[in-house]
């Protein structure tokens, strides 16, 4: 299913809010998990960055939770979320990770994630006729656009010119 | 062993035949008959290398009192035929005034028999059997043997009737006729080997093999899961357990190899069921890695090793005690665990049951070192007493109030074990060295603590006085001239030697060890007090038991060492000869 086809099936504003909320939660959880992985692998700069990103996603989630008050929001089973792909669009793919990754490289991935999130709401905005869904979709799309810009701003702190590809000179350590 | 009235307290005879002659069946029927008539006895067997049709010998000893081993010499031997009998003729030496009866059509008498000094005679068993429709030579031999031994023929008839019930009335009639004919032949011989009347016994009596007794002891002890891979001479343990376990709500799974069987048993034990497998030397060699896993992850497991001739494929059908080293030392790393050894066929039941209790109580592997001479021996024994050793594992009963440490350091070294299904008890059992929570760790303190824990729980356990059978031939409480120090199946021959020597005025203490590992040094040295000369007896080539003892403690006094590998079992007469020789030295 393409992004457009999937989001067409989001039928109520409540359902949209449930998706938006879960998206932020998934992103927060994912950044936290990645931060732990980087801590275990002693990539402290990256761990710090991921923790910060997790914190910010957590704030977004709280905001949406407030918006959900008083609305009829369905409980959706985890496998029934209508993401375009396998997971929430805003969660970084763990398969793209590397323990020697630089903050800049991670931010470029985060940028893509925020772009995916934007696309999700943008598709829905264009595909739906429901005015309430349209309102929320536009709102969330705008939010995600802000996040994109935030990441761009953060990227400026890690200019490409300063990138030093990191190399691990030690051989792998066999464990068992 | 003759009583004053000329009757025997114990006789031994052998029935030999090949090509499906049925010698083993005849021996088994005679043993059962003697049992029904009130005697005790034990039967071993010797077979050729093929599955079917080979030469076979039933070796039977009957006695007025319980016996734990074969005699070294046989009073009479009936050979349905002599084909290939020279292969094991040396295993059944006849007494000087013994009797060897062969069939004139049965081939040449082996030289070992012919030169033994015994009377060599003939009975035309084949011809006699031929005279009865459907007659079998082994039934002629059975009747002849019963008459020579003074067994009641009507008891023999009724045992045969029940044994052959499935084969129909004609078969039973034919057998009865042959038994009659056979028993009549006894009149043509001057010698007879009648037994004294059996001692009256109030307790019920059993006819059972060592392997069956191990199985029953295990189930009595609480075993409810077995994994099985067959190997000679242990297979009967597993084949007995298969239907037995389902009757008591348990299960047996046949595995694809010993690696699977030991790991299946460990998995089942992890799930909370007392579990067992049985094997012999080659199988135990495959299992040692998993035994280390059970040791490190503290999972109870019982492994029965019915020892056979080693090393490698060795002599699968014969007995030896040469798996002591691998049982005690087989695991890599420092992996203390329990090793026990039954002292007789009857003791197979006690020791197996005790092993389950020990393994469960200490959450560790327990290896039971039985051997072929016990496992495949069929014995008439007094019904073993019920004993209170039932598996009692220290488990986490309910959801823990605080966080749960599977491998917490406790006074006894035993920490409560969470069984899957208990909420809050989740942990990952691991062969990796771990913290008290079970998290893998390479820290010095964790390694030291867990090694100490696992060693202490084994060393500090109260084994009571079951670690050995200690008997003396004199009741005075004074010291003895000699101590016979042995373990496992040699307890029987050693005990009999002790009694023979007592009749000659030589005082002997028997110290037969049932608990091999851990080594209870204090108790062991205390048991040796009051004796100056120690004869260590074991069935190995290299002297594994002797080396083990010397590694564990200083043996004070004079020590001699009598050892031999299989296949010829060390018997009471040889042990006596060693002691007598030493006495005069």
């Amino acid at each position, binding site marked *: 299913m393409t992004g457009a086809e999937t989001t067409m099936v989001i039928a109520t504003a409540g359902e949209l809010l449930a998706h938006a909320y879960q998206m932020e939660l998934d992103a927060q959880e994912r950044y936290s998990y990645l931060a732990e992985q980087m801590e275990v692998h002693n990539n402290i700069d990256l761990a710090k960055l991921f923790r910060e990103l997790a914190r910010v996603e957590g704030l977004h989630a709280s905001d949406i939770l407030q918006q959900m008050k008083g609305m009829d929001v*369905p*409980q959706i*089973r985890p496998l029934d979320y209508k993401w375009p792909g396998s997971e929430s669009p805003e969660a970084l793919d763990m398969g793209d990770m590397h323990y020697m990754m630089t903050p800049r490289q991670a931010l470029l991935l985060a940028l893509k994630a925020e772009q995916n999130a934007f696309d999700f709401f943008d598709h829905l905005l264009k595909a739906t006729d429901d005015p309430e869904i349209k309102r929320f979709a536009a709102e969330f799309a705008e939010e995600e656009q802000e996040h994109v810009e935030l990441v761009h701003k953060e990227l400026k702190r890690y200019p490409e010119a300063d990138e030093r590809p990191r190399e691990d000179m030690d051989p792998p350590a066999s464990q068992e | 062993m003759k009583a004053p009235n000329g009757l025997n307290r114990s006789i031994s005879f052998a029935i030999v035949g090949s090509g499906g002659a049925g010698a083993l069946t005849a021996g088994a029927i005679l043993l059962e008959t003697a049992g029904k008539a009130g005697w005790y006895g034990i039967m071993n067997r010797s077979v050729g290398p093929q599955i079917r049709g080979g030469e076979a010998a039933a070796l039977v000893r009957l006695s007025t009192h319980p016996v734990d081993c074969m005699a070294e010499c046989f009073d009479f031997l009936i050979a349905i035929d002599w084909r290939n009998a020279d292969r094991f003729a040396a295993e059944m030496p006849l007494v000087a005034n013994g009797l060897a009866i062969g069939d004139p059509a049965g081939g040449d008498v082996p030289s070992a028999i012919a030169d033994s000094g015994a009377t060599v005679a003939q009975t035309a068993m084949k011809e006699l059997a031929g005279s009865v429709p459907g007659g079998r030579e082994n039934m002629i031999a059975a009747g002849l043997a019963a008459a020579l031994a003074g067994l009641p023929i009507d008891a023999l008839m009724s045992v045969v009737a029940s044994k052959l019930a499935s084969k129909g009335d004609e078969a039973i009639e034919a057998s009865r006729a042959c038994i009659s004919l056979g028993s009549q032949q006894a009149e043509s011989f001057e010698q007879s080997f009648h037994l004294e009347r059996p001692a009256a016994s109030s307790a*019920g009596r059993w006819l059972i093999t060592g392997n069956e007794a191990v199985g029953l002891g295990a189930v009595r002890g609480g075993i409810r899961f077995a994994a099985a891979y067959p190997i000679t001479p242990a297979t009967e343990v597993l084949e007995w357990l298969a239907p037995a376990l389902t009757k008591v709500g348990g299960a047996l799974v046949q595995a*694809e190899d010993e690696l*699977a069987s030991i790991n299946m048993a460990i*998995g089942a034990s992890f799930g909370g069921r007392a579990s067992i497998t049985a094997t012999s030397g080659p199988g135990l060699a495959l299992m040692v890695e998993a035994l280390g896993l059970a040791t490190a992850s503290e999972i109870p497991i019982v492994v029965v090793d019915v020892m056979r001739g080693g090393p490698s494929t060795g002599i699968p059908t014969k007995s030896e005690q040469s798996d002591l080293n691998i049982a005690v030392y087989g695991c890599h790393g420092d992996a203390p665990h329990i090793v026990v050894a039954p002292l007789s066929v009857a003791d197979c039941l006690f020791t197996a049951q005790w092993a389950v209790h020990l393994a469960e109580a200490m959450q560790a592997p327990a290896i039971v070192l039985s051997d072929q001479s016990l496992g495949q021996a069929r014995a008439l024994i007094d019904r073993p007493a019920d004993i209170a050793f039932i598996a009692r594992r220290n488990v986490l009963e309910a959801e823990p109030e605080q966080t749960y440490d599977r491998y917490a350091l406790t006074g006894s070294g035993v920490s409560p074990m969470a069984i899957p299904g208990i909420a809050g008890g989740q942990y990952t059992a691991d062969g990796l060295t771990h913290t008290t929570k079970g998290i893998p760790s390479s820290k010095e303190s964790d390694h030291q603590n867990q090694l100490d824990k696992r060693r202490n729980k084994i060393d500090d356990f109260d084994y009571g006085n079951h670690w050995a059978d200690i008997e003396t031939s004199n009741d005075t409480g004074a010291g003895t001239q000699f101590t016979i120090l042995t373990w496992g199946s040699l307890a029987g021959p050693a005990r009999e030697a002790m009694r023979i020597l007592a009749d000659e005025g030589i005082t002997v203490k028997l110290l037969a060890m049932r608990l091999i590992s851990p080594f209870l040094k204090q108790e062991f040295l205390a048991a040796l007090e009051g004796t100056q000369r120690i004869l260590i007896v074991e069935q190995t080539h290299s002297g594994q038991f002797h080396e083990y003892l010397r590694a564990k403690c200083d043996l004070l006094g004079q020590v001699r060492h009598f050892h031999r590998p299989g296949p010829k079992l060390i018997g009471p007469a040889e042990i006596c000869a060693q002691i007598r020789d030493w006495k005069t030295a």
Partner: protein
Amino acid sequence: MNIQQRPPFKAGDYKSDLTPVWCPGCGDFHVLLSVTKALAELGTPPENVAVISGIGCSSRIPAYTNCYGFHGVHGRSLALGAGLKVARPDLTVMVMSGDGDGFSIGGNHFLHACRRNVDMTYIVMDNRVYGMTKGQPSPTTEPDWDSALSPGGTGLSPFHPLVIALASGANFVAREFSGDIKGTTRTIVEAVRHPGFSFVEILSPCVTFRPDERAWKTQTHPAAVEATDDPSRAARRIMTDDGFNVGILYRGRRKPHDTHVKDSAGDPAILEEEFAI
């Protein structure tokens, strides 16, 4: 829209506090996620699930779950799992290991586990390399893959676990790609629900020793046809596909291994009768 019943457990309930030591980028992170999601979907309490493994990177997984776990010795996880399930049929038993542990040293147990058809789920995280020991070929490695231990490649025909599973009697066979979390989760749910021995091979890239396996993300694709219940048809499909067909490939109808274990105990005294003279 129906208000759906709130499931009793979340995926997070099945994850322990331990952060895996797998290299970031390892496919096993996805597998862990899929397994926890699947268990949440199934709703089995964590204390009623046992995760059994052998040795290898993938086999570290039990400690990363909040279930009962057993990190056994190399190659014997299926035996551990079978013994546990027969003794405790009430538990959900998931055996999880890698291609080395499962198909090399564990190969024999694999064959017989399929034959025995005990009701449990076997998940193999296949990365076509021995990762734990720093990058040797495994039974599923391509014959020309160069390594220090086998320079120039082994030249050996790769092991076909899915076909072997079918030939040996496995009752459920599936192939997945770790990055497709949704698909993998759904397959695991069905694998657990399906009676008998369920085998799921999950292609799970090794970021450190097989960086080329990142291409699996684009190479894997859903199987074009529905699962069959005919093992020979399934085998033919697998032997002629491109190796990247994902989904449930076979659902069999064999009865699972009968375990006789009951909680009610017969009295052992009845066993003595056969010995009485």
